[in-house]
């Protein structure tokens, strides 16, 4: 593995986060992943489903990875650790799903994408 290979952080350990971790590991990237609870809570799942991925807290994933993928429910985006994500390449994989995110005109406005809102939040 070359030293230049970026580490990939994934915030969210649901269906999407797990698949992304598997793909990144298969492509021989170093992977760090956080669920909504403690790293211990997803420890067993990750050891079996994505062996090699390091489980950490959200803030540790954000501060220790070069690229951070957001794979959590969109409604939680305002709780992202903004400072830890400063100067990082952040890839937003979240989508608005009104049934679980709640009716939110700002998120469903066709004039702007939800990723723009996330970007704006991270630039604060």
């Amino acid at each position, binding site marked *: 593995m070359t030293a230049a290979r970026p580490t990939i952080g994934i915030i969210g350990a649901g269906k999407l986060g797990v698949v992304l971790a598997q793909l990144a590991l298969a492509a021989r990237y170093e992977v760090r992943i956080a669920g909504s609870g403690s790293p211990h809570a997803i420890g*067993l*799942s990750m*050891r*079996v*489903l994505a*062996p090699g991925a390091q489980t950490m807290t959200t803030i540790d994933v954000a501060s220790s990875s070069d690229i951070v993928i957001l794979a959590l429910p969109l409604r939680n985006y305002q709780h992202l650790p903004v400072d830890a994500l400063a100067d990082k390449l952040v890839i937003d994989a979240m989508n608005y799903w009104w*049934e679980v*995110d709640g009716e939110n005109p700002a998120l469903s406005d066709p004039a702007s994408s939800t990723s723009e809102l996330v970007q704006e939040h991270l630039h604060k």
Partner: protein
Amino acid sequence: MATQPTSAASKSSDILFGLDSFGDLPTDKNGDVMSHAAAIRQVVSEAMLADKLGIDVIALGEHHREDFSISSPETVLAGIATQTSRIKLASGVTVLSSDDPVRVFERFATVDALSNGRAQIILGRGSFTESFPLFGFDLRNYEQLFEERVELMAEVLKEKPVTWKGSTRAALDAADVFPKTESGRIHTSIGVGGSPQSVVRAAKYGFPLMLAVIGGSPERFVPYAELYKQAAAEYDTSSDEIGIHSPGFIAETDEEAIEIAWPAHKINFDRIGKSRGWPPVRRDHFLEEVKHGSLYIGSPETVAQKMARTIKTLGVNRFDLVYGGGPMPATARTRMIELYATQVIPRVRELLEET
């Protein structure tokens, strides 16, 4: 890299074969779509046929949408109970997040009495959302609702007075729930669609696992079966029973099966996709799923080969085939059940014995 599955089933004769339905509305002999009421009676007659032909389980799943007739599986199962003698009567699934564990127990214990101990429950978090606003639940709490209700369900199933406290329902103080079953236990599994937390939760409470694999290659679920086994070892519970639920259709030839299943499948999925934002299903995608994915569609030999492969790969000991997806002729559904029972199941057992 997938871990090697350790086969949960020792003999092919130990494997259970089920038929699953959501009460899709079939078409009658004039090609007209049946009413909800007629579709429910159709499922009862199909279950009677399945019982007569020796199929192990009929599992009926709950939906709250116009395109499915079954919103109350256990009421239909109660109807089937007194008309059948051997077949197990399961839900598939009971959406526990928006249901009450005490009532679920009462209803299934009643089916268990009517069927002389043949009732089974498959609990799920639900992949559709209609039941939440309908019963006054906030979908935003779906994870917490399910977690709490599984915990309470596990207590109620012990058939002893229950003392329990949570935040999504009133507390119970030494509450006894009736009717008691004759066996002392209703067979209860958890159905999961790929959420690792749900797999671990099933193991934590010692519930058998049903994997709902409705698209893509079944091999992807090998690590989930492995996760279930490792989690069960950690919690010191049993991981002996793992099943799979996938859709299919059987006719005399591959061509005939595809020509009957495709239009019904397209109508079914395009309707659901419309409310979920999926693009319309394309025929080439459908055929790809038939060939390599999780649609068990074809002649008895084709379907048997595919089922045997999946059973071996995942090491499962139960296969529930979802039949009659979309508006399909009722006669084709009946024929499928006959072919499943008389040709596919014996052939799958034979194929499993060969290795």
